[in-house]
């Protein structure tokens, strides 16, 4: 008999890491017991500083995460990492390779790394990734970093569903600043230019600063009209360690602004709304497939012969979802 999710939650609240990793796997099922356990975890969480980190493939995200974690650990804070990699559109399977850049962290009890694949359905990834964050938060991690590849709407939205979003750009990946091309310039609370040991990194930094000066980020102002946060550009090198301390100090400063001003209040409301929509979408989708699979088979023939149309048919099917 598998252990009940409720028992796992009790163990989680006592700091049991094995319970944490098992619950992350359970979190993807939709039975009532699991859902109510996830609810309990959500309500217990809320202490940790959640950092979303995104950027185009190969920009140095995982190597940077590894450096960041190693350095944050020095002041005793415990750090969790959720590393999300794309899955194959053909088989749905995935090779999750971020962890290979973080091997220096694996023997540290104060670090927990979980790899995840972007699955087919949209609601699903947001739900499992952000639930994993809640689980790490509840079990006692102080900082939780979510790494996603900054292509694809889901991945970008997940990086945004955090308290502080880092967008990583790197020199040497083409002429333009990749964040602009990928359309992720606007979501950054902090821009990072990685690989600053390379001589061409200065240009990337300058380009980014010019873009920011042109006002892509609309600064949120306090009641006196003073911007609550100006988006900085921080250069880092995971090879030399340059800029890592500055980046952590900047992150901590952003966390404090987030926690003490309306910037954070608004952000938390947006995240709550996003999560509720995504969870509902995910539940709806799975209920729809469960209760519709057979019925669709009954009507496809008719639709194929154009005696019936997909619009009328889906409308009918939606009305018949069994909850």
């Amino acid at each position, binding site marked *: 008999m*598998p252990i009940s999710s409720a028992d796992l939650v009790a163990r989680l609240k006592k700091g049991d*890491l*094995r319970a944490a*990793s*098992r619950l*992350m*796997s359970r979190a*993807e*099922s939709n039975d009532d017991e699991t859902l109510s356990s996830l609810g309990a975890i959500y309500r217990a969480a809320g202490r940790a500083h959640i950092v979303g980190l995104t950027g185009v493939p190969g920009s140095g995200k995982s190597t940077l995460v590894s450096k960041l974690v190693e350095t944050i650990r020095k002041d005793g804070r415990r750090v969790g990492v959720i590393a999300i990699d794309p*899955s*194959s559109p*053909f*088989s*749905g*399977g*995935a*090779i*999750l*390779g971020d*962890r*290979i850049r973080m*091997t220096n962290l*694996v*023997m540290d009890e104060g670090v*927990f*790394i*979980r*790899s995840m*694949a972007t699955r087919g359905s949209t609601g699903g990834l947001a739900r499992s990734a952000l639930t994993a964050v809640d689980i790490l938060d509840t079990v006692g991690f102080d900082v939780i970093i979510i790494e996603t590849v900054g292509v694809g709407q889901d991945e970008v939205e997940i990086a945004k569903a955090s308290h502080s979003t880092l967008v990583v750009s790197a020199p040497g990946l083409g002429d333009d600043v990749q964040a602009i091309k990928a359309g992720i310039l606007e979501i950054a609370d902090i821009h990072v230019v990685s690989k600053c040991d390379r001589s061409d990194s200065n240009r990337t930094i300058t380009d980014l600063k010019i873009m920011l000066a042109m006002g892509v980020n609309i600064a949120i102002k306090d009641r006196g009209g003073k911007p609550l946060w100006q988006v900085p550009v921080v250069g880092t090198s995971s090879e030399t360690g340059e800029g890592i301390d500055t980046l952590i100090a900047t992150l901590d400063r952003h966390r404090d602004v987030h926690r003490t001003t309306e910037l954070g209040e608004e952000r938390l409301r947006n995240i709550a709304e996003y999560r509720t929509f995504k969870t509902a979408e995910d539940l709806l989708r*799975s209920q729809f*497939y469960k209760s519709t699979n057979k019925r669709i088979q009954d009507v496809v023939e008719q639709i194929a012969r154009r005696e019936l149309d997909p619009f009328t048919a889906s409308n009918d099917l939606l009305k018949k979802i069994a909850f």
Partner: protein
Amino acid sequence: MSLPIRVLLAKVGLDGHDRGVKVVARTLRDAGMDVIYTGLHRTPEEVVNAAVQEDVDILGVSLLSGAHMTICPKIMRLLKDKDAEDTIVVVGGVVPDEDVIPLRDMGVKELLLQDTTPKEIVARLEKLVQERGPR
């Protein structure tokens, strides 16, 4: 809709080849599994820590160096210590005939030797997870 099988592939010991493991990784991905690869020269402790955090169904240990009779018992013991003995351990690589029974006795569920075809690997892993049942 069942969740994909999660597999951690680890290269333990001194030998520096991982072409074989990478081929297996791709085969498993193409069969719809999630594969976490941890890189070369891992210690049993590192492998088990990663397997526990990732809550994998299967831990695949690849060994060419002939050290499996010292490494495998260590891995089995560490899994037990970490309350993760329901992890299915399979060994790949080169294993002499006389070690097969001792390895199975210590709880290694399957040996995937170099002549095992990709299709067979997938089938055997799927079967092992099915036999284990939900957890």
